[in-house]
């Protein structure tokens, strides 16, 4: 186990290339649960215009029953429908980051932590892929498609916000947060104190202050 933050950082840098390479190869396997989830949502009709979700080599394809609108320079068949492909690697690389950190920390229970970390990150990755798929269908495919879907303006705004948040912030931040929670004792060594313990101590101070500040009820 690394003893200083500098050594830990160097170990992360050493682990990043092989782990990201392994993740890149294993992406179709790692994305399986996301496919089940998205296919399940499509089966339940959430959202109602997605008929099925198929897994591709690096991501997912959303098939819909929405007809493409008239696009200048493009001719569609009468039965053409809109589909959208999402490269899920852009939203799931947090798994590789979390794995690099876990292996750099070399915790005795690192394999268990890798497994838990992967499971913990899946919901965020599912949300990201869903948001990106919806954004591509509803915001990039033109007004005719949007009208068929009949989503309210606030729903479109939410999808746009979720797309931005899922792309720019969520993948690395969730990976770091999950790793942090799984390696609390390891982090404690660098910080010199338990961070969550520090939060609790601050909370205890507030409680003590509150108890002292509240006047005791007078007996009748």
């Amino acid at each position, binding site marked *: 186990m690394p003893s200083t933050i500098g050594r830990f950082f160097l170990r992360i840098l050493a682990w990043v290339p092989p782990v*990201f390479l392994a993740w890149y190869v294993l992406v179709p396997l790692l994305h399986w649960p996301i496919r089940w989830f998205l296919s399940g949502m499509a089966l339940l009709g959430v959202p109602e215009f997605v008929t099925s979700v198929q897994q591709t080599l690096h991501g997912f394809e959303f098939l819909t029953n929405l007809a493409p609108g008239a696009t200048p320079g493009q001719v569609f068949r009468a039965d053409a429908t809109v589909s959208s492909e999402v490269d899920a690697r852009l939203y799931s690389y947090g798994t590789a980051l979390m794995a690099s950190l876990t292996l750099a920390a070399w915790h005795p229970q690192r394999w268990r932590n890798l497994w838990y970390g992967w499971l913990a990150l899946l919901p965020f990755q599912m949300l990201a892929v869903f948001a990106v798929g919806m954004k591509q269908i509803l915001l990039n495919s033109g007004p005719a498609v949007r009208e068929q879907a009949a989503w309210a303006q606030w729903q479109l705004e939410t999808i746009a916000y979720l797309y931005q948040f899922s792309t*720019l912030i969520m993948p690395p931040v969730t990976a770091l947060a999950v790793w942090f929670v799984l390696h609390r004792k390891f982090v404690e060594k660098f910080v010199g104190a338990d961070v969550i313990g520090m939060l609790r101590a601050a909370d205890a101070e507030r409680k003590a202050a509150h108890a002292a500040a509240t006047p005791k009820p007078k007996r009748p």
Partner: protein
Amino acid sequence: MHRFYGCCAAAPLRESKDDSLTFHPHERRRFPAKAGSGTIHAYYAQCAAVFCGFSMVRFLILFLVIQAVLFGAQLTPWGQEYFVIPWTNGLAHFCAQLVALVDPSAIANGKILRSAANGFAVSIEAGCNGIEATMVLLAAILAFPSTWKQKAWGLALGFVAVQGLNVVRIISLFYLGQWNMTAFEWAHLYIWQALIMLDVLIVWLIWVRRINRSARNAQPPEDGGSMTPSTPVAA
């Protein structure tokens, strides 16, 4: 004598013998309450204690809320026009000036960093300007219990660390793209994104370690702070 400080967790802080108050390093400095407002303060304190009951949950909620608000604010047309675009343009020009020290062909045009020698250019888009990483650090520091002074120096140093590494990212991508586009894509989409957030984590951990140290240094000894001579004094 108890003196109440502020509305949040109205705190009677440790009293010394001369009745002057000493501040705990984790406590924020608050304005003293006016005399006679004890009941109102007790009510506020009760509300605060209910809300702040779960320290970890409170930290996480604050972290997420601050982050979501800042992220939403920078997405607004006002945020883009007055903050994001000027910042990104300034970053491109700064990077161009740095690169020009060794490669005079580098020029900046708006948010685009271009090589006049071979025409290769990189456009600094959202996610590459370091604003998101800085916001994550800002949210983590603001949400963690500490004094405003500690937050201020943490933010100042963190800002320099994140933006400094981001300049390295942009310049490295500028040259990586001229060498190999596959390597550029890999570094751009995965590796640098991860490293920048890793930088945020390391900066935050160092900051927490520093405030923890200063808290320990400021704590009185176990015996209540009385000065005990190491050798017995002769009667």
